[in-house]
């Protein structure tokens, strides 16, 4: 593998997505949503900062997810469909370098977007805290610009990178429409995965329960990345948990990318 090639492919993905208006729309929406959450916070009695934190983190996750899924499923498919890949792969670019470059490019786009949204989020919170009296501030479970929220943001980022890899994997062999369906389905099931594990305690069907347990271990456990509730309510999240979950995400991601590379390496471009 030639890292310079991967970086250059990633750079072109980043440049293309930065120029794509879809991305600006998503960022604008996120900022708008943060603003709305701020207004909502104004309306509720007691000026509870929790609502704003909750909505803001949810917005970062949701818009990140939209970027990951909707750009991710088109990345490889579009190159094959429009045949721009023909000239690229006739250069000294190996197929796995192409896939890794695409992943890194979109990953970079996502990280930058999450960073922009987080900065906007902290600015809103900071401004809010600045307007309040010290007494009100003292009544909050956690300070408005609580650094612990960065743990939630980090795990959201890892989750988004994993979703990107999954979207990319599907896009190496199927159309964007199907890829969106499959990625979203996987994300929904993965987010409910603790329910899958505990299905046996709810229904009396051993086969179904066993199947659900199997799925729980195979499918990515997206609910593990969700620490919003803890962070918002000032419940401490251990550094060990964050580290372990990050490693889990990274390992899973590596498997998904390896699968994407394996599928892509032998396919014909029509």
């Amino acid at each position: 593998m030639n890292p310079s090639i991967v970086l250059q492919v990633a750079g072109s993905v980043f440049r293309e997505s930065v120029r794509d208006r879809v991305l600006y729309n998503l960022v604008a929406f996120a900022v708008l949503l943060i603003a709305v959450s701020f207004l909502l916070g104004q309306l509720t009695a007691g000026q509870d900062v929790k609502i704003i934190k909750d909505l803001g983190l949810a917005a970062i996750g949701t818009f990140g997810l939209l970027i990951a899924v909707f750009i991710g499923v088109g990345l490889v498919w579009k190159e094959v469909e429009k045949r721009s890949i023909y000239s690229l792969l006739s250069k000294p670019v190996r197929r796995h370098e192409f896939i890794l470059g695409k992943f890194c490019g979109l990953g970079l786009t996502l990280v930058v977007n999450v960073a922009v949204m987080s900065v906007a989020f902290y600015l809103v919170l900071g401004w809010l805290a600045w307007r309040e009296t010290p007494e009100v501030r003292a009544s909050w479970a956690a300070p408005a610009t609580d650094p612990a929220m960065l743990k939630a943001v980090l795990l959201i980022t890892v989750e988004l990178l994993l979703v990107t890899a999954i979207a990319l994997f599907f896009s190496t062999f199927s159309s964007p429409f199907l890829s969106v369906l499959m990625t979203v389905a996987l994300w929904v099931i993965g987010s409910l995965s603790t329910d899958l594990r505990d299905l046996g305690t709810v229904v009396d069907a051993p086969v179904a329960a066993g199947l659900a347990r199997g799925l729980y271990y195979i499918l990515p456990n997206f609910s593990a990345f969700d620490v919003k509730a803890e962070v918002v309510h000032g419940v401490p999240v251990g550094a060990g948990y964050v580290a372990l979950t990050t490693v889990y995400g990274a390992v899973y991601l590596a498997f998904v990318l390896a699968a994407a590379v394996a599928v892509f390496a032998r396919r014909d471009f029509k």
Partner: protein
Amino acid sequence: MPAAIRIDGLTKHYTVGFWKPRPYLALDGLTLEVEQGEVFGFLGPNGAGKTTTLKLLMQLIFPTAGRAEILGRPVGDVDVRRRIGYLPEHPYFYDYLTAEELLQYFAGLFGHAPAERRARASRLLDEVGIGAERRLQLRKFSKGMLQRVGIAQALVNDPDVVFFDEPMSGLDPIGRRDIRQLILRLRDRGCTVFFSSHVLSDAEALCSRVAILSGGRLAAEGQLSELLAFSVRGWELVVSDLRDEALEHARRVGVIAGVTPLGQGRFALDLPRDSSPERVLADLTAHGAQLVSLNPLRETLEEYFVRQVAEHPATRGLDQ
């Protein structure tokens, strides 16, 4: 010195039909060798398998059987890709890059430093005649402009072998002439040019050798001069001082398909391939006619092409 391109029994089947899948022979056992420094024309009617061959050489698709080498290395070898260039059929690139950025990006993939990337991009865009439009995003490019960018990107690494899939497609007359000259410049530089085309006049003007593909199979291959030299279509005999009796007499000796007066007392006689021009000529001169010229009428590449294609009907399904 290894051959520029060596293709050995290259075969590609596609499976067609959803309910009753059956193989379809896009390319059937192609064997071909191109020496370094040649300009090689890869000809054939629509659907003959030209693009399929080029995609196999670029390893964009994988062969069902057979193998191919470029510069003595198997296709797909990254070191080989450093030394080749490829213009795909109907080239298409990234919507949001400008022509300049695209070429700089591609130059970077060969490890060139940024200053060198810029220099190459601007030199090549000059060479293919893209002017101030080079700062436009490629989605705003016309078909012919994209074709020119496609040719420029194929040359970004000063390749030793270039593969052009229909280089003239979509170009205006000036563009065609420019690209013809470009191909000749590449040849003079020692670069091997392998191009597919159905524009036979281009092949006639440029190629040292051609192959004609028909229905996925090789129908003919060789030096253009040889292929056409052996296929004399007839003779054109020009004489002066031709009297009517002499013509009448000569008609009894050999077949004369037509007589065209050329002015100044000259006549062109059209003799078919299997007539005997020597006997007709001897007879005419015995009756007072003077020989001006006797020329073989060679088949044009177009006629040769049509004949080859007709003689090699496509039988492409394995179930036939």
